[in-house]
């Protein structure tokens, strides 16, 4: 298709204990930086970036990522995803991730900031084989407007589908339309401003892990609300309502460390952004 604002594809495989790309392609307003190996674990880290600095009216982005057996990869962004006003047509981002048995992929993007009158739709579709591991987080901020009004964006819609061995195993759909909803009220954001979500799918999920994550989260003293629960497939999801990006990031970092150490015997490095 030629009507994409930015296209990126990245296929990863394991070669002699090291995860490397067998295909890297990007075009238009999407770019992937050189691979970074934070330690000698062989796990590769890629920073994805939008050289334009933000998503504009009618922009459409497409990412396709795959990991073969044994590949271990961290995907993150260089900075927050910013969506500016979209008077004509919403901005759209579609990500497809395919994971073979025995691969590990974590996708930990920076928060989403939707500006005044922005409309944004994001679709993540993950196809994984059992024996693969997938970890994903996102953070939704109240956006930004010149007058400082919160929730001044028009629509933010986030859809995530995870297919396990060809069958739909998780479907998550958040759609916030502040003009039609009492967003800060009961049942919505419960008086908080930021929403964090984490989802993980792995055969190694057990109740002990959920208890450990829950206990760890409770150590945090700032004001927030959290829910954690097992999925219909082996895996779990976490939702956090809080008043800052930093707090949600801190909680997710603690969870990420526990998960990574349990599932890959690997202590993650902090994802330094420049």
């Amino acid at each position, binding site marked *: 298709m030629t009507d994409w604002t930015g296209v990126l594809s990245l296929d990863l495989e394991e070669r002699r204990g090291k995860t490397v790309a067998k295909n890297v392609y990007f075009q238009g307003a999407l770019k992937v930086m050189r691979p970074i190996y934070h330690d000698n674990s062989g796990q590769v880290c890629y920073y994805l970036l939008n050289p334009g600095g933000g998503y504009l009216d009618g922009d459409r982005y497409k990412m396709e990522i795959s990991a073969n057996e044994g590949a271990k990869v961290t995907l993150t962004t260089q900075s927050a995803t910013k969506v500016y006003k979209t008077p004509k047509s919403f901005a759209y981002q579609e990500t497809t991730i395919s994971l073979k048995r025995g691969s590990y992929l974590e996708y930990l993007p920076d928060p989403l900031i939707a500006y005044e009158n922005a409309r944004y739709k994001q679709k993540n579709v993950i196809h994984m084989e059992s024996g693969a591991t997938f970890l994903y987080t996102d953070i939704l901020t109240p956006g930004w407007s010149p007058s400082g009004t919160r929730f001044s964006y028009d629509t933010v819609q986030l859809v995530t589908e995870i297919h396990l061995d060809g*069958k*739909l*195993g*998780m*479907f*998550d*759909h*958040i*759609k916030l339309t502040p003009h039609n*909803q009492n967003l800060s*009220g*009961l*049942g*919505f*954001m*419960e008086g908080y401003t930021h*929403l964090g979500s984490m989802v993980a799918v792995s055969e190694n999920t057990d109740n002990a892990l959920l208890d450990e994550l*829950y206990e760890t989260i409770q150590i945090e003293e700032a004001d927030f*609300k*959290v*829910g*954690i*629960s*097992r*999925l*219909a*497939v082996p895996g779990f*999801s976490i*939702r956090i*309502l809080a008043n800052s990006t930093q707090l949600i990031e801190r909680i997710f970092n603690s969870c990420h460390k526990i998960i990574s150490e349990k599932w890959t015997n690997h202590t993650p490095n902090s994802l330094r952004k420049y």
Partner: protein
Amino acid sequence: MTSKILSLFQLCDSNFPTGAFSHSFGLESYIQEDKVHDQESFFEWLKVYLHEQLIYSDGLACRFAFEALLEDDLHKVWELDRLLTVQNLPRETREGTQMIGKRMLQLTDSLYEMPTLSKYKEEIKKKNSFGHPTIVFSMVAHGLEVTKSEAIQYYLYSAISSQVQNAVRAIPLGQTAGQTISHKFIPEITGAVDRIMQLTEDDFGIVSPGIELSQMNHERVNIRIFMS
């Protein structure tokens, strides 16, 4: 009133033993946090529960399942069963709904000889499907030749009516207060049906973060009278 509608009423009756009254779907978390504590705060919760969660999941699925049954497209019905189950991220709410669905299927299957019901049972037995009350309800309504909007309306009525009875027991509220809420809530239900008729597939499964979080949190509520 036709006997067909009366037959569908039997499924909405609180005496119909599906176990629905053991599930608060997160309401108990709000009651324990004292966010829902009287008639007004419960009414507010009920509105968010209906308009921001139920219509996009059970309500819309009831309509889509009914439409699929009209076209004899059972494959689509099994897809909806899976979608409804896997989009329900809080475990207790998901498993509770599944229990109610299976129980309702068992009961209706013994009351009606409808081929769709027995096929649904087979799909569940083969572990291809999970079981969901809105799918069973749709099948019975379709079999009874009730209209699509009536089916959705009665399904929502029964879901809301269980929650009102739960609130009467758990907050607690007086019986008259409970009936006042049910009475005042009727326009909300008919409004929800109108809205469901206008939604598209792109609206399916939208969740309200707070409601969902309260359903997840119920797993960690210490003293409880409900299973979810």
